[in-house]
């Protein structure tokens, strides 16, 4: 039984029992029967198929397209090129805020990266459109591409991530390092990574005059709607974006992408509904990626292993035409106590698509470097890596000096270590083998992710039959919004799940904010709870002000909403059903509105982060170098858990992304052509089922009274952090080899050690 006390309406309580329950997914039956309708599953009457033609050079211009050859193919309806594209109301290269991408919408013949769209082929069938794109046989004027981190002069970016300063320092790091008894300096490299959700970007666009309906996966419905409206010069209310299910997002469906707009343009050009789905190889370019980094960490400690200085410098890259700088150093702001911390950045511009948010943007790349460096420092101090982390436990957020709103990291370390059996770990590497002679290694990493909130809105209705409706334009990309938000919504109205209809996933509902930054449950959840509170407050006012009600005069005492009834707070024998209250007032329904945003006062006073500890066991063939992560235990504290079943799945998914980061993912780009050489799921490796034989997540209890009234932090991204480093550290412990270039591949473990 959970109780929600909303600070906005202290007089009235709502009691619900849904929050905290491990309910199965409410969209489960749809998803296991094939009934969940993803964007590309739509097929309006008269629909045509559109396929992108993309550039095979990374820099230059399109000199010619064989439009005639493509048009000669049976079934081709139209070829959209820069010559005949419909006009736009806004320059695709305009950028008015950081939450938008500069887009390639056939505005000219320039090619800025490989796989950039250069034409759209529209046909009666998918087969015809696909072949038509091949028949365009583009010719290019090609210039030498720059695609490696060392390929261009670097500069200091004005900001990293979204508006984070590119330099920060407390204390004096050089003094701290100079005064250290032990020091390490190491450079770590992380590769280009591509999100590769299982569902490629897809859009079905249908115009009706100046009104537009699109089915497309979106992590930000309201932003997508606004972006489309401004590009086409139509009112936002003319644009309906439907995204009830996303086949994974991970950041690449956050900001509206060029291919999605091209689908809408194609529909406009031909005057019929159009479906455009990216081919898998087209996911390697126009929809964002995680930029590569080189990170240099310098750490120093005193004789007791206490950090005296921590410097984290990142070199990364953006595209030649837009800004997104992977904020990898920032993870060093919050995790380990040190009197002196400095983070800094430099960047280059490359002939690639623009990088973007990718699950734990910055934190993931930064964490694998920081957690590796912390392990190297622990080794230099001759300390157990967990003991070293505890020695440098931050009681206050190091960079700001603020107290944490809550931080159950000690419990995470303790519960994780206990479950994993960490205390049996030998200090030295290469000391454990299994019965088959495989090297065994154990590693630990600390997980951290900020507890963010965006702005969101919701609407709640109580109807005279006693049932409710709650609406918010949330996005479910697998994290479980359909279920978790409905749980909050039901409790917010004091109804059971069955008495309440939850509507979501479309842009004509109140803006729920973006599903990103691990902030969606907090943002949309607080809005939903607020809407429920508002509706209950109005209902309570009706009842307590009505002489005929059993609750008359209870306005000061307050009421409790539970199971579809209002109870007098100081005398629960006096109650009345929602239906009776509304019927007597002759109202069909009563409506409440809720909105949410981060509390600026709490933010000013507290550092807000989720935390965790991840323990990994790897086995490595001593001669052949093949690696397997045989056991993973993660313990995470992330405030109030709305649905432990779904949260555990989020942790598993994040941990598997951590394994993938450490051992698998690597976008291979040919420096001569600038083309991705593994743009497919056969060679761009992510873990398969056999890679994950044992995984456990412990949900460590944590109460947080400051992040928001529901006490929710985020869970979607944190588990990559910590895990990637834990795996890398376990590989070191198994083999004695410290690999600083990720992913760790088998030849790096079998090649002779560098002198």
């Amino acid at each position, binding site marked *: 039984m959970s109780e929600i006390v909303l600070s906005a309406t202290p007089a009235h309580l709502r009691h619900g029992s849904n929050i905290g329950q491990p309910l199965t997914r409410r969209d489960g039956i749809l998803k296991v029967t094939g009934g969940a309708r993803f964007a590309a599953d739509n097929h309006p009457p008269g629909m045509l198929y559109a396929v992108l033609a993309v550039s095979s050079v990374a820099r230059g211009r399109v000199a010619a397209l064989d439009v005639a050859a493509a048009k000669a193919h049976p079934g081709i309806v139209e070829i959209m090129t820069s010559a005949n594209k419909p006009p736009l109301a806004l320059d695709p290269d305009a950028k008015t805020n950081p939450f938008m991408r500069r887009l390639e919408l056939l505005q000219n013949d320039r090619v800025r990266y490989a796989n950039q769209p250069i034409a759209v082929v529209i046909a009666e069938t998918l087969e015809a459109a696909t072949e038509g794109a091949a028949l365009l046989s583009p010719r290019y004027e090609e210039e030498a591409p720059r695609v490696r981190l060392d390929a261009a002069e670097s500069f200091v970016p004005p900001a990293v991530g979204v508006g984070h300063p590119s330099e920060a320092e407390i204390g004096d790091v050089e003094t701290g390092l100079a005064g250290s008894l032990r020091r390490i300096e190491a450079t770590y490299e992380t590769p280009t990574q591509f999100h590769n959700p299982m569902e490629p970007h897809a859009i079905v666009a249908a115009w009706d005059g100046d009104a537009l309906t699109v089915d497309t996966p979106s992590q930000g419905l309201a932003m997508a709607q606004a972006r489309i409206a401004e590009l086409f010069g139509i009112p936002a209310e003319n644009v309906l974006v439907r995204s009830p299910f996303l086949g994974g997002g991970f950041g690449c469906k956050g900001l509206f992408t060029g291919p999605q707009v091209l689908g809408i343009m194609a529909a406009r050009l031909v005057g019929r509904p159009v479906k455009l789905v990216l081919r898998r190889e087209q996911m390697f370019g126009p929809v964002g990626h995680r930029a590569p980094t080189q990170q240099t960490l310098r750490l120093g400690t005193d004789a007791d292993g206490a950090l005296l200085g921590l410097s984290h410098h990142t070199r990364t890259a953006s595209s030649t035409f837009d800004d997104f700088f992977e904020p990898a150093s920032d993870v060093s702001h919050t995790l380990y106590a040190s009197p002196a911390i400095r983070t800094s950045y430099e960047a280059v511009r490359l002939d690639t698509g623009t990088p973007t948010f990718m699950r734990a943007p910055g934190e993931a790349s930064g964490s694998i470097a920081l957690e590796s460096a912390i392990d190297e420092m622990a080794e230099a101090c001759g300390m157990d890596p967990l003991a070293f982390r505890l020695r440098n436990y931050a009681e206050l957020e190091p960079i700001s000096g603020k107290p944490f709103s809550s931080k159950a990291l000690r419990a995470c370390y303790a519960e994780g270590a206990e479950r994993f059996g960490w205390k049996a770990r030998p200090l030295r590497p290469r000391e454990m083998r299994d019965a088959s002679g495989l090297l065994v290694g154990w590693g630990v990493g600390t997980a951290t992710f900020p507890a963010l909130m965006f702005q969101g809105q919701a609407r709640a209705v109580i109807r005279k039959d006693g049932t409710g409706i709650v609406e918010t334009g949330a996005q479910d990309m697998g994290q479980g919004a359909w279920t978790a938000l409905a749980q909050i919504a039901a409790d917010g109205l004091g109804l059971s799940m069955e008495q309440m209809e939850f509507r979501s996933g479309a842009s004509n509902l109140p803006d729920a904010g973006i599903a990103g930054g691990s902030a969606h449950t907090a943002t949309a959840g607080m809005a939903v709870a607020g809407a429920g509170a508002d509706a209950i407050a109005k209902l309570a006012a009706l009842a307590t002000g009505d002489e005929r009600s059993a609750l008359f005069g209870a306005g000061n005492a307050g009421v409790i909403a539970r199971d579809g009834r209002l109870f007098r707070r100081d005398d629960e024998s006096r109650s009345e059903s929602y239906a009776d209250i509304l019927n007597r007032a002759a109202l069909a329904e009563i409506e409440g509105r809720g909105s949410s945003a981060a509390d600026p006062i709490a933010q000013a006073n507290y550092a807000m982060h989720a935390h965790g500890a991840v323990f990994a066991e790897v086995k490595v*063939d001593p001669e052949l170098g093949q690696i*397997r992560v045989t056991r993973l235990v993660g313990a995470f504290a992330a405030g109030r858990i709305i649905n432990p079943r779904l949260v555990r799945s989020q942790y598993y998914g994040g941990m598997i992304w951590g394994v993938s980061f450490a051992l698998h993912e690597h976008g291979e780009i040919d420096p001569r052509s600038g*083309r991705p050489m593994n743009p497919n799921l056969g060679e761009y490796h992510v873990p398969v089922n056999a*890679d994950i034989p044992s995984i456990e997540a412990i949900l460590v209890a944590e109460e947080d009274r400051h992040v928001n009234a529901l006490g929710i932090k985020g869970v979607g991204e944190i588990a990559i952090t910590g895990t990637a480093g834990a795996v890398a550290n376990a590989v070191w412990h198994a083999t004695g080899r410290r690999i600083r270039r990720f992913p760790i591949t088998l*030849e790096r473990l079998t*090649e002779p050690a560098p002198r």
Partner: protein
Amino acid sequence: MNRFDYVRPATFAEAIAAASEPGAAYLAGGTNLLDLMKGGIVRPGRLVDVSRLPGLGAIEWLADGGVRIGALVRNSDLAHDSEFARRFPAVAEALLSGASAQLRNMATVGGNLLQRTRCAHFYDVAGACNKRAPGAGCEARGGEARNAAVLGWSEHCIATHPSDFCVALVALDAVVEIAGQGGEYQVPLEDFHRLPGETPGQESVLEPGELIIAVRLPAQAASFSRHARYLKIRDRTSFAFAVASAAAALRIEQGAIAAARIALGGVAPKPWRARLAERALIGVGPDRTHFDRAAEAALADARPSGDNAFKIELARRIVARALALAAAGTPARLPALPGSPFSPVAGVLHV
């Protein structure tokens, strides 16, 4: 995918006639051909669907103890045929270490022999590849050569043959039966694939229209059943092509090696039989020193074709390990992770 004519002949003769036309290709399981067509790597003008041709789908046990595997037998059916797996466990293990269960349910024995390289530059249709376009050049040289060959390559092509199945087959002296307009003939698998030389586009001895109808394993191949393994090193635990692999089979009599069979995968333009290494083992004890020596012999001619020198030492170690695994004895049941170094070696052995 380009437009093509689709024909489904009823007889061999019809099939061979239909496929002898320029630009024609046989379609069986389709797992490789359709992938290549979707990528624009091949653009056949006619597909001759032989997947229903009669008489090619059987596993026949021959009077002399050998086996004749019809070209249309699916990989999974062969690997899970209990008699086949008992007699040729390394072949079954190789089959099950490849691709995914779905692909193994589709892929055919004949098609496996004809699968094309996974060289990234072969797939990169915007770049130069002598295999795709003779004389265009080889961008794998100086490019993404991690998966490239260290044996048998030429200046014109450094691509590897990706099959697991063929590695075990070539070790065990498999013979390919072929039908063409001139009738039927057979060729040892070892001679079936050609080295790239100056014509990397010509990957096998097949002439236009010729069709693989069966693969035979001789009775002698079954004499290795107690000591036969396939070992495959990969970048993930399953569903990945070999970085390098080896099939090893031993006949051990009175503590000494009476016969040895060794072949390597992922390191050469064809499944690579290591006969010198085999000879080095005759008459010696099944111990690590001799296995290492054999591994040296197997890679004696190896040289890097790019940034892949690591594969030479890795392949040596794989050969030595595969021999050690074979010497330890074939497991009674194929391991849960076929071909994987993460399959524990303990347990009941093959009898």
